[in-house]
C-alpha cells in the first residue's frame, strides 16, 4: 500500500470498517511510513483527547424543574410573547411549576414601527441604487457592430497565434482594439 492508498482508506480505518486484508496492509504501511504513521497516531490521540469532554454533567433537579416550567410557560404564551418579554418564577427563587409572563406591549409597538420604517427606507434606497445603476449601463451594448465583434471574439479558439492560451485580459485587449478599428 502506498501513501495515496493509505489516505484513501484512512476514514474506514478510523471507523473500524476496513476489511482484514486492507487493514493489514494499512497497518504495515503506517509502520513503514513515518508521515502516515504519525498521521494515524495523531488521529487516534485526538479521538482519545476528546474523552476529556466526556465529563458527567450534574444539574440540580430544581434547576431542571425550573427549566421545564419556563419552557411550558413560554410555549403557552407563544402567540403573544415577545422576544423581550421576561418570565419570572411566580414563587420567587424557589421556582415552582407556575411562572408569570411579563410582556412589554409598548416596546412591541415601537419595534413594529421601527421595522416598518426600516423596510420603507431600505426599499427606497434599493430602488434608487437600481435606477442609478440601470441608467449607467454602457451604451456600447446597444451597438450592433460591437455586439457582432464581441460574438466573433467569443467564438475565437482558446489559443492565440503563438499557441498560448487566451485569457480574459487578452480578449478584452482584442475587443478594445477592434472597437478602435
Amino acid at each position, binding site marked *: 500500500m502506498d501513501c495515496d492508498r493509505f489516505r484513501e482508506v484512512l476514514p474506514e480505518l478510523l471507523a473500524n470498517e476496513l476489511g482484514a486484508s486492507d487493514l493489514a496492509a494499512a497497518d504495515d504501511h503506517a509502520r513503514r511510513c513515518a508521515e502516515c504513521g504519525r498521521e494515524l497516531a495523531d488521529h487516534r*490521540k485526538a479521538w482519545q483527547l476528546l474523552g476529556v469532554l466526556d465529563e458527567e454533567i450534574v444539574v440540580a433537579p430544581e434547576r431542571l424543574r425550573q427549566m421545564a416550567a419556563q419552557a411550558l410557560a413560554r410555549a403557552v404564551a407563544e402567540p403573544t410573547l415577545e422576544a423581550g418579554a421576561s418570565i419570572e418564577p411566580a414563587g420567587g427563587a424557589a421556582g415552582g411549576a407556575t411562572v408569570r409572563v411579563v410582556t412589554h406591549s409598548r416596546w412591541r409597538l415601537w419595534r413594529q414601527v421601527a421595522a416598518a420604517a426600516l423596510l420603507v427606507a431600505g426599499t427606497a434606497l434599493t430602488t434608487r441604487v437600481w435606477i442609478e445603476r440601470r441608467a449607467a449601463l454602457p451604451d456600447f451594448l446597444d451597438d450592433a457592430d460591437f455586439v457582432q465583434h464581441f460574438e466573433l471574439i467569443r467564438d475565437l479558439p482558446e489559443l492565440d497565434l503563438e499557441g498560448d492560451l487566451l485569457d480574459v485580459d487578452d480578449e478584452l485587449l482584442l475587443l478594445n482594439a477592434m472597437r478602435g478599428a
Partner: protein
Amino acid sequence: MQDAVEQPGSDPGQTWMLAFQRGDEAAFTALVGHYGAQVIGFFRRGGADGAAAEDLAQEAFLRVARARDRYEPTAKFTTWLHRILFRIALNDAARNRWRRSVGFAAPRELEEPAGAPEPLADATAAPLPVLTRDELREQVRAAVAELPEPQRTALLLHRFEECSQEEVATTLGLTVPAVKSLLFRARDNVRKRLAPLFADEVDHGL
C-alpha cells in the same frame, strides 16, 4: 399520569412526550429532568460555557414544548430531540452564543504570562507545557467549537451520544456515506487543531 413518569417504558422520552401530548405537564417535567443534563452536556461539549449551555438547553426544551401537538412517535425520541439540537446549532444567534463562550489558545499562550521571557531560539526544542486537565478540556472544547456545522453536531452525536452513523444520518437528513465523510472531516479538523498537544514529551495523563 404518574405511570408515565415512573414507568416510562423502553423509550422513556417517547412515553413522556405522548403523555405530555395528552395534557400531562408532569410528564414534560419528567422529560426535562431525564434529558436536561444530556442536552446541557451536548452544548457544553460543543463549546458553550455553563450559562450559555443552559440557555441553549432552555431553547431546546421550549421547542419540544411547542412541538407538543405535532409530535409523532415515528422515531426514537432522542433522534427527534437531536434534530432539535441540530437546528439550534444551525441557528445563527445560537451559534454566536455558542462560539462566543470559548476561544482557542495555543498551549504556550496558556503557559506564558505577560512579560514572560523571550522564547528559546530553537522553539521546537523547547518542551511543550503540560496542561492541567481543566486547561486541556478547554483546548479540546475550543477545537470542537471551531468545527463548522454540521461537522460539529455529527461529531458530538457520534462520539458522545453513542449515535450510530445511521442515526446521525437520520438526524442530520444526510446519507450514511455523507455522514462518514463528514465525521472524517470533523476528526481531521480536530486532529489538526490539537496537533500542538501531541508532542511525545507531553503527558496529559490520559
